[in-house]
């Protein structure tokens, strides 16, 4: 009789187990770490891109977005917090965020997708492009490498230009590498790149103040955050004073008053990153997906600067430009 009672008990437990077996699929949890407001376009692109791929916000995907508001010291803490929350995927808005995630090196960290980064090997974010050494993939914006292409575009935009000024930080990898690529192109076109190493805002100001009228035909920026930050207050007023055309790597700098830029749009990079995030969320190891390059590059020209500098565009340049601001 005891056996029969056990049998009934077992049958009741089985009913319960089978009844509970058809549970709903858990939504994916994505944690996004952003250095500051400048990363918002990438982040928006990612969320829109994932939505296009069928990830409905607050239904089958949940986002936890932590913005450090330009305070670099908070990035590691935010990354650790998201790991603690057991998110399925960590998204780094840029290179600083990716460096922070790598630095904390948590064994329980989920895979990471980086939306915007450059010089990934040189900055030691990955061991090699083929094998990153940890569970990460993302978009390499090629900002430093495109310095080569920018020299070509400067040549076409300003056919008489011979001496190009670049300010750079030697201890910032993309900055240094950008100079190398610019020199490579300048050599091809019998142009001269004068690269001046700076280490501080004061040195940027001093170098800019030392430029003489007509000493250079154009100025090119290489991806260097401190120099980007000095653009509004130091560089733009001085180049305007000198009537020195300024070619940059970022569309936002053209919006701020630079003459032209050539590079990948942030929003597009976010959407491209969504494809990588989708693959990872579908179970592909991030470490097995090589960092991608941007799908699109945009050549932006500031029309008012054109007029201010009195430049006339050739047909060739017009064929190259994607947009006028």
């Amino acid at each position, binding site marked *: *009789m005891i056996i029969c009672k056990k049998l009934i008990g077992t049958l009741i437990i089985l*009913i319960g187990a089978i009844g509970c077996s058809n549970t709903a699929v858990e939504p994916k949890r994505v944690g996004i770490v952003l250095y500051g407001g400048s990363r918002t376009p990438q982040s928006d692109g990612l969320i829109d891109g994932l939505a296009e791929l069928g990830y409905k916000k607050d239904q089958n995907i949940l986002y936890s977005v932590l913005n450090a508001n330009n305070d670099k010291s908070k990035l590691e803490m935010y990354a650790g917090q998201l790991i603690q929350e057991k998110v399925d995927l960590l998204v780094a808005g840029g290179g600083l965020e990716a460096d922070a995630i790598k630095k904390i090196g948590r064994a329980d960290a989920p895979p990471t997708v980086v939306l915007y980064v450059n010089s990934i090997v040189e900055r030691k974010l990955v061991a090699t492009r083929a094998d990153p050494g940890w569970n990460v993939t993302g978009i390499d914006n090629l900002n430093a490498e495109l310095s080569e292409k920018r020299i070509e575009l400067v040549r076409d935009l300003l056919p008489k230009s011979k001496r190009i000024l670049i300010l750079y930080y030697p201890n910032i990898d993309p900055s240094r590498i950008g100079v190398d690529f610019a020199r490579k192109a300048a050599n091809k076109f019998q142009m001269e790149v004068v690269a001046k190493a700076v280490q501080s805002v004061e040195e940027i100001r001093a170098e800019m103040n030392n430029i003489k009228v007509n000493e250079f035909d154009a100025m090119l920026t290489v991806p260097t955050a401190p120099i980007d930050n000095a653009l509004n207050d130091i560089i733009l007023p001085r180049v305007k004073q000198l009537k020195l055309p300024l070619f940059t790597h970022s569309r936002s700098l053209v919006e701020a008053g630079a003459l032209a830029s050539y590079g990948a749009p942030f929003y597009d990079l976010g959407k491209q990153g969504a494809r990588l995030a989708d693959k990872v969320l579908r179970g592909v190891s991030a470490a097995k997906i090589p960092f991608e*390059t941007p799908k699109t590059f945009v050549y932006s020209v500031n029309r008012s600067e054109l007029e201010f500098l009195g430049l006339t565009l050739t*047909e060739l340049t017009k*064929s190259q430009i994607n947009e006028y601001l």
Partner: protein
Amino acid sequence: MSAPKRIANRIVLLVLLLEIISIAIWGTLTYQSSQRELVNTIGGQLSETNFRARTEIANFFTPLAIHADVIASTIASVPMSREEMRSFLYRAMRTRPEIQELSLFDAKSNELAKMSRSESVSDSDLRTNINDADLQSALQGNRATSLISFSQYFEPEIRLVFPIAGKTTADNMALGIRVNLKWLWDILQAQRIGTSGYVYVVDDSFNLIGHIDPSYVLARLNVSKSSIPSELFSGSGLSTLTQYKNFEGDEVAGVSGYDPINHWWVVVEQPADEVLAPLNRIINRFLLVFILAATITVSLVLLFSKITMRPLEKFEKGIARIAAGESTVRIDVPADSELSTLITAFNGMAENLDDRIHELREAERKYRTLIETASDSIIVVDEVSGRIRLANRRAAQLLGYSMEALVDMTFNEILFDTNIINLMRIDEELKTEGFINNHGTAVKGFDGEKISVDFSASRTGFGDAMLLQIAIRDVRERQQLIEELEYQATHDSLTQLPNRKMLITDITHCLRDNSDSGKTSALFMVDLDHFKEINDTLGHRAGDILLKEIRPRLTQRLSPDDLLARLGGDEFAVLIRNFANEKDLVNKAKHIIDAIRQPFSIDGLTVQIGASLGVAISPMHGIEAGELMKCADIAMYHAKVNRLGFAFYSKNLDRHSRERLTMLSDVTAALKHEQFVLHFHPKICMKTGEVKGAEALIRWNHPTLGLLSPNEFIPLVEVSERIGDITRWVINDAIRGCNQWRNAGEENLRVAVNLSARNLNDESLPKTIEKLVNAHDFDARRLEVEITESALIVNPRRSRNVVAALHDYGVRVAIDDYGTGYSSIAYLRQFPIDEIKIDRSFVRQLSSNRSNAAIVRSTIDLAHSLDMTVVAEGVEDGESWETLRDLGCDFGQSYFVCKPKPQDRFVEWLLRRTESEVA
């Protein structure tokens, strides 16, 4: 489990089995039809996705081809300058972002222009590409498509080359377009197939060229070498839905489709478990229904069987209670039941059984009362099984078991050694004798303890059983008493060590065994040095504590075969049954002496004694116990007298030993007949060479043994009261001698006498000396006493009092043989010391042993810092003398300068020395 319950269970299981079979048949049929339906549906879905994917590929390449045709026809028809050509190509590239690079070639394969999206291109970058097969094909008018390659960023690229027809062949040109395929792969991989399905692309060489996981593509995976069935890549259109293991080893369902333009296979796969998920839901529902039905069925059958089986269960329980010994069981007879007759017969049988059990219990009660009142332990054993059937409480108490545990044990289990006595032997003996009365056997207690008993056994009857009644008497107390008496007779009551009697017995056995085996054994005789002083100064209780401490110290250093015995007083002996060679014996002797020399702590006091040890070896020195002990004793006394620590017996020692025994009694006569003489050994200032005094050394001019040194008789006398008489004689004679030196002109010389530990224990000594000094009208400051460190620490408190009294009186105090004891100058500071005499062992190797030199130097420095003078003893040569002088040593005593001399010759030596100095 009861029989009725077993029957009920079987019924339940049978019903359940029938239910399973019927539902299984129905389920299988349902499952098969559902599966067919599902496969058709999924196959359709995957085929549709496959078609859509191939359409996307066409949608990707067709506009590109049209775009290329437009570019080609424009270039062919519109003459353009080089600058215009670049502008045109830039515009062409701008409209199609997937184009990474555009190149324009002339008929000679020269690159006319090149546009790159991310790299700069100058004229110097333009190349001639004669070996480019795709280019040559295009220049012949054919469109060419390259194999997929990968960029430096591991991105898939394909190169398309389009012909541009000129008016003549020489005017032909070609347009090369490098296309980044990640645009296409993104489109394909965005295809949703259920939750986890995906699309991948294989070229016509079966190389994987596009997959959601690019690592497979970069690894150049060839699917023909995988588990994917080849029929997926054999048709010209869509394959049927096939279930197989993909190259990752996962079970999937897949459909492939051929793209004839690019010669690619597009495969759509979905994990099998996801495909079959609807089927699994059906199975789950089916199981749910089955389990519900089974639960209801089992419950109903259980209820029915419980009602019908209840009388049968009662009957079975009644039988079980009778079997358990409950004879009063009666079962209610159910009315109109199939079991009524059976239960009535059962109740009659139970009544008969009850009566019979009653009778037997009464007989057992009487018998039990009988054995419970017996004075011995009684157990009753079943002859057939050997098990104990009955036992009285006395037996249970004796053996340490509870009554319950004891009953049902076998008799042999309680016997200590069944080889000596067992049930079979008892049975045989009873057959012949009828009764057994056995003395001196043993039973085994609960914890395995041996219990010595006497026992008697006889046969008894109880019903039909064949039983043995065994009476057991505990004889342990008697036996323990005998053993204690034996122990006391052979052991020392203080140390619990074997005594002389047991030692002699063991030596005798050992030597007897040796005579058979040819082995050698040795006997150590150990006598403690200064033990008597401990007894005399600290009392017998302290002596006893020390003697008890000797046992563990020596036992640690002996092997298990060795026998340590106390012979009485401070004498011990060790029988070494086995040893390898004499070196072994030497090591063991040294260990024993070293163990005894370690300080003892007695009631907070630290005392130190020594030991002298004699060794005799059998058969070399004797083959009987008495003989061997005598030899070891002689060797021991030789060691003691000569302060050797230990000595081996030799025949030469015999003479001395006999004389030694009479020596002690001769001391009184020697004092009376003035057989003692003093020899004086000068102390010379090392800086000036002046004689500052002399040490008085006693000699015994023995009538039969000749001139004896103090080492030959002082240790014997030192343990007796006689030492006081000798000391008094020495001081008296030394003062007298010193006065004679004064008369001879040496007025400032001091004389030194040696005091023993026993002297320092004599608190009347200061008064004695005062009397002697006064008697000779002597200046006490010219008298010096030399005391060894070991003498001071025997009784430090009393020694301190005596030394302080002497020092206060003006007598100088010197520490003799400094460095041989364990004390330090810091310790000695508690005594009023005037002089340190460095032992000859440090002085002797001064020039050859650097550590000795360091010790001497530091001793001199420290002594000087404490206002003490330093005397070096035993300076053997001029070199040592000079070294010591250089080290700052104040005085020296040296055979090299002057040997100890009797008074008259010493005076002569003094006078001669003075004369030579004057001369």
